[in-house]
């Protein structure tokens, strides 16, 4: 038996979601504004609460356990909040400088391995040993890397084999862009399908979903036809 709270959650959820999708109609409308502002409000509130809990759990609790050095972290964090004060916003720079410096140091020492050295070493593969499929993949990787790199030679006049290699590299890039587009579409469709599935399984939710679709679409069309669609949008 489904209780009234669950029904309310589904009814409000589907309505706000369909209101969000109403942007696809191609015109700003009050329902979209309502959904957008609600999402921003809830999202910001949730983020603040969860992060305060995080600071408590990993900061205050650890200080209580004797890890007093974290006190400096809390003080630096509080200093960043002074950004909002006109007279003392310069103090925030110290906290920001520490954060940026630490972040840069942490990232730099690892990114150079994951994004650079490991990627180069992965293209240095044995080209004459292995099964037929392995050899096909390895030769494809090697040839494509070399050919595509020639496309990015900007300081040399491209002629002869270099020009052909550059052209081939360009077309290979187009193929890669096509694959990325297809993958992106798959991702977006996956998000949409997953969302829709969330409101069609279990089946008792389906009428609320369909009703929300029809109501939102009808409201937007009526507002558009009566030329009142802009009237109800809040000013920024």
């Amino acid at each position: 038996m489904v209780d009234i709270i669950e029904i309310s959650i589904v009814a409000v959820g589907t309505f706000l979601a369909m209101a969000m999708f109403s942007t696809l109609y191609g015109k700003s409308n009050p329902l979209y504004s309502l959904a957008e502002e609600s999402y921003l409000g809830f999202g910001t509130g949730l983020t603040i609460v969860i992060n305060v809990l995080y600071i408590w759990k990993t900061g205050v609790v650890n200080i209580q356990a004797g890890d007093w050095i974290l006190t400096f972290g809390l003080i630096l964090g509080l200093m960043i909040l002074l950004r909002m004060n006109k007279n003392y916003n310069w103090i925030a720079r110290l906290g920001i400088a520490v954060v940026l410096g630490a972040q840069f140091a942490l990232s730099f020492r690892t990114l150079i391995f994951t994004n650079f050295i490991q990627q180069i070493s992965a293209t240095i593969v044995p080209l004459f040993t292995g099964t037929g499929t392995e050899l096909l993949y390895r030769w494809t990787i090697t040839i494509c890397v070399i050919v595509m790199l020639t496309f990015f030679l900007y300081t040399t006049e491209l002629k002869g084999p270099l020009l052909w290699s550059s052209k081939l590299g360009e077309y290979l890039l187009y193929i890669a862009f096509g694959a990325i587009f297809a993958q992106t579409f798959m991702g977006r469709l996956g998000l949409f399908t997953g969302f829709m599935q969330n409101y069609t399984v279990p089946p008792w939710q389906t009428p609320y979903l369909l009703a929300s679709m029809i109501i939102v679409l009808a409201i937007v069309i009526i507002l558009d036809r009566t030329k009142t669609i802009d009237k109800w949008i809040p000013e920024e």
Partner: protein
Amino acid sequence: MANNGGILKFMAEYDRRWIYLLIFVVVVAPLLQPLGFPISVSPDTEVYHKILADVKPGDKVLFTLDTEFSGYMEIQSGIIASMRILLNRGAKICVAVGHPEATSIPQLVFDACSAELTAGGYQYGRDYVNLGYILPNESAVAALAEDFHSTVRQDAKGASIAGTFLDDVKDWSSWALIADFTTGLGTAYLRAHFALRGTPMTVNVIGVMSPTERPFYDSGIYKAILNSMRGGAELEYLIGHPGPGMTAMDAFTLGHYLLIGFIIIGNIGYFGYSRRQAKKT
């Protein structure tokens, strides 16, 4: 439009709202009335399944949810199927979250896998723990990799983790596997501070992220990669436990057919109309 420029102009310039409307129809209709299209399993998913199925009883697995709630909708099939495999293998599971919106996801996953939890005799604390939101940024992930217990002392509900199976966890080397489920938030940090050091790591990515994460699999930093909802459906098929992934595959397939159809129609319209205009002039 069609009257003025003919069918070719209509094909090239039709109102894009028709596309949105048709996508709504082809996605919702199969969800309401499944068609049962067959699916095949990709080599990537087979590798992913093998890595998870090779986990030994008692192995400690860090199960990280680096996803917003919207992303969870796409990869929930992979998350739930992976959790089922790990529970059936008898792994000890520590769930960690990398986004405020994901804090409600662990309970959904445990609810979906309640049969496996019961069958395996799983007890909270002894066999699994939910740490909640502990992966907000790179500093936090780096600290966890260096010294686990000086970074985290409480679980998601604020209870002490002392006395749980996490007592045995010291640093990055204590984990037998990191199973990451991501929309692209903290994965780079886990990759840099755990996988690069040698902790085996698998990822289940949303489709948009797949092209950017793929090189890290090809270069051996990830042990396996599971792509989007499609990968999740394949994993469900491999473990013989249909779930949200497999039931969504009809909509997924029809959505792609629709896109191909629109690309063909648009190109025929564009090139046909352009050629006709060129001939006129």
